């Protein structure tokens, strides 16, 4: 996938995350499309591009959100770095179950970071409610993962087809 496509996808993801998904709220939760996209982009793009996009997406979400400024920029950057490290160690990031486990872990960690901030503000944290919301968000994120991965594959497939077509004509 090219950086230009990555940038367009990132911009679309930010707007969907700030406007459409919170209004839609499937099962009463806001799915984290941005996190799913950052992980998938980090698995496909060159390291510098994926880190740049992670910073861009995180920062725009930080600007659009009312709380925890800096949390998303830092977290998405760390998530992209972690995926890049897995790539470096030769992990097969085309394997859906591996990417799914990264998404689940990242969702739990990001929510724990938000809850830790709330705990510092001495807010009462009902565990049952938190577990229910987190489970619903994980389920939604996994559904999004399958959809977004399919879209990315379709986009990558079309690019390859076009490259082959152009190559064939030149030949």
């Amino acid at each position, binding site marked *: 996938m090219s950086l230009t496509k990555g940038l367009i996808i990132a911009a679309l993801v930010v707007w969907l995350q700030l*406007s459409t998904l919170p*209004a839609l709220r499937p099962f009463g939760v806001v799915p984290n499309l941005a996190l799913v996209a950052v992980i998938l982009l980090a698995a496909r793009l060159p390291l510098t591009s994926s880190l740049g996009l992670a910073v861009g997406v995180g920062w725009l979400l930080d600007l659009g959100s009312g709380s925890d400024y800096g949390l998303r920029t830092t977290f998405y950057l760390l998530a992209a770095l972690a995926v890049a490290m897995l790539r470096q160690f030769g992990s097969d990031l085309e394997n859906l179950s591996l990417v799914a486990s990264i998404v689940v872990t990242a969702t739990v960690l*990001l929510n724990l970071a938000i809850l830790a901030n709330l705990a510092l503000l001495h807010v009462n944290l009902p565990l049952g409610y938190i577990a229910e919301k987190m489970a619903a968000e994980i389920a939604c994120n996994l559904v999004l993962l399958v959809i977004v991965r399919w879209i990315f594959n379709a986009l990558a497939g079309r690019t390859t087809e076009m490259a082959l077509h152009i190559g064939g004509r030149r030949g």
Partner: protein
Amino acid sequence: MQRLRSKSIITIVGLGLGLVILGGLGFLRPVTTVLDYVTSPVRDGFRAIGSGLSGLTTDITQIRHLESDNAKLQEQVNQLKQLASQDAEVQHQNDILRRQLQIGGATPQHLVAADVIGYQPDNFRQFLTIGRGSNDGLGVGMAVESGGELVGTISSVSKTTATVFLVTDPNFKVDGIDQTTRADGTIEGQLGTGLVMDKIAENSTVTPGDTVITSGLGGDLPKGIIIGQIQAVTNQGENQVFQTAQLNTSIQVTKLELVFVVTGS
């Protein structure tokens, strides 16, 4: 090549952390203003798509409840008509007494209507972005209401947009009073359970069904904005110093399209 790549990675990580630190210190406000200005129309469009889809699915699932809901609403309309008639009479008497005692009349609130253009992008916290800012006279701490009920307060403002800290956020706190018994307490947002009125004195009376309004004490919130209705009262044991009441608010965050900011009275 390897060194160049390491340099790029360090630059991006540094850039990310720099953005976090500079933004945290408030140095990126001009950038935020420009971004808000450029993106707010598009965000409004995306929000409308989400609300439309959400409304459609809700409509489909709610059709079978329409008849009973309609009957309940009709009953409420009748009760409210009666209350409105009584209120008009009380208002008239109040005006006469104020004139006789030479007390100034209640000043009307100045409201600025604002479209909801964005939401908090994750769970657990509750914020909204509205399409009005300091150019329209909005400031931090001002009350935001919808249908006469408190939605929240403005937590940050740029020239063209403002962020609203919702009453249902677990870190929200405001002083409120029971409109019927005048019992006062602190209203706090709660994760998952809506609103709670805490620190109600043990000897005060609060009854389920009573309306709770802002007390006007502290901050910029004017007195008299409805916060919600008391649903249940707890902690009424002999050794309890304070009572706690669960509140119901009719504010549905995802259904809000237009809100009103109280800019002064």
